[in-house]
């Protein structure tokens, strides 16, 4: 009996793992079940009132807790639309998107968004705010007191490899693009959301900085145990970061699998992506995308 109960406890451990590096300052709800944090059920989105083809059609997939699911696809394949459906910047035309088991349509959009970190390509830092104010924005919106916010900001700056003393008071224009992305990641983590949405966060960086940030972020993400939906058109990035890759083609998901499985899939779009990587590597040794 004890052994059974012991093994029963064991299976529960992943859901209660204390993530190293995760701050105590958390408003993230403890995960009570292994249910997916994000789930798409037959989701179609078309721009309302416009007689255009749907941007994404009949999308179904689930993102499990602490998983990094990478949405891979060409420009215009609907990757960003899927992200925007998760934090209710868009509502589905058909089907439903569930976050923590509840359809986004029944969430208060403000509450929903404050529990989801969002990182976009150009970082989208507020240019009139300092680095510290940018990172502390969501905590401030959530009425944390000043001491708690500044402690959190300092902690996050260290986490993304920026010296708080040097960077706190700078404005975004006084940062390199790589530093801006680091601040963008720190800002997304500020209120310790269980979910992160990332839209080509490293897409605008030079290849060297990009590789650095990808490596660091990969390690960080594993450490923090966040559930991450990550959009990219870069197969290298997908292979490096993903727990699983979902391939989008013209608004539909055509393949899902782990990076290892993905490379072996027999699908024309998968081959197109792998071919681009291989050709590029052969033609231009050292180029990264």
């Amino acid at each position, binding site marked *: 009996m004890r052994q059974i109960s012991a093994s029963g406890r064991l299976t529960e451990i992943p859901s209660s793992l204390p993530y190293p590096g995760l701050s105590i300052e958390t408003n993230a709800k403890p995960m009570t079940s292994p249910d997916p944090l994000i789930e798409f059920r037959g989701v179609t989105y078309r721009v309302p009132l416009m007689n255009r083809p749907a941007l994404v059609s009949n999308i179904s997939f689930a993102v499990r807790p602490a998983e990094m699911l990478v949405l891979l696809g060409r420009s215009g394949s609907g990757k960003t639309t899927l992200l925007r459906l998760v*934090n209710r*910047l868009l509502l589905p035309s058909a089907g439903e998107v569930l976050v923590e088991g509840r359809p986004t349509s029944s969430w208060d*959009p*403000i*509450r*929903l*968004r*404050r529990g*989801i970190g*969002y990182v*976009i*390509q*150009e*970082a*989208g*830092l*507020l*240019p*009139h705010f300092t680095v510290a104010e940018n990172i502390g*924005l*969501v905590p401030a*919106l959530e009425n944390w007191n000043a001491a708690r916010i500044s402690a959190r900001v300092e902690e996050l700056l260290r986490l993304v490899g920026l010296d708080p003393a040097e960077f706190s008071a700078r404005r975004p*224009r006084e940062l390199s693009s790589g530093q801006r992305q680091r601040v963008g990641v720190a*800002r997304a983590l500020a209120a310790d959301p269980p979910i992160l*949405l990332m839209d080509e966060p490293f897409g605008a960086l030079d290849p060297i900085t990009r590789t650095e940030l990808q490596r660091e972020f990969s390690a960080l993400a594993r450490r923090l145990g966040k559930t991450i939906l990550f959009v990219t058109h870069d197969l290298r990035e997908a292979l490096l970061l993903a727990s699983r890759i979902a391939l989008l083609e013209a608004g539909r998901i055509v393949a899902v699998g782990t990076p290892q499985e993905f490379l072996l899939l027999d699908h024309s779009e998968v081959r197109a992506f792998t071919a681009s990587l291989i050709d590029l590597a052969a033609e231009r040794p050292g180029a990264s995308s």
Partner: protein
Amino acid sequence: MTTWTFFVTHRAEILDTTLEHLTLVVIAMFFAILIGVPLGMFVVHRPALRRIALGVASILQTIPSLALFGFLIPIPFIGGVGRRTAIVALILYALLPILRNTYVGLTGIDHAVLEAAEAMGMTNSQILWRVRLPLALAVILAGIRTATVITIGVATIAAAIGAGGLGTFIFRGVAMVSDAVILAGAVPAALLAILADLLLGLLERRLKVS
């Protein structure tokens, strides 16, 4: 009498009139900003209302200034002869540049910034007050600057309906066929306009967030 001696002998009167002129402009600008900026903020998310507001302001701007002063005289409460009517006309004139720049400034913000703000769970009013407005301030001020320079010029015509100001010299000078008297109104008005333009330009540069 040369222009110079007229300026010297009438310096007290010129100064008084300039102050009177400035008062007209300041009061009119105060109300124009008080109406134009909030109106611009209000119509950001209301396209139908925006078209109406900008349309009306544009039409007002096309009415010749002398005619606008004339039109207002018979209107009850705001009309009649004197300063109050002139100020109303000046407000109507100043409205378009302020309203338009407020709207353009609030909407011309980097899309990534607005999207990030929305995605972080800022409400529309938080985005308006904490993101759009601070980032639009320089553009709004540019509108205020344009409006101020226009108002200083148009306010000279207010003398035609008995509102005083530097226009008094200009109309008197025209009637007397005296360049000296015309210049006693025109030169201070021009100087005021240049000064306002310079000062507001400086302020605008300080507010600009790159």
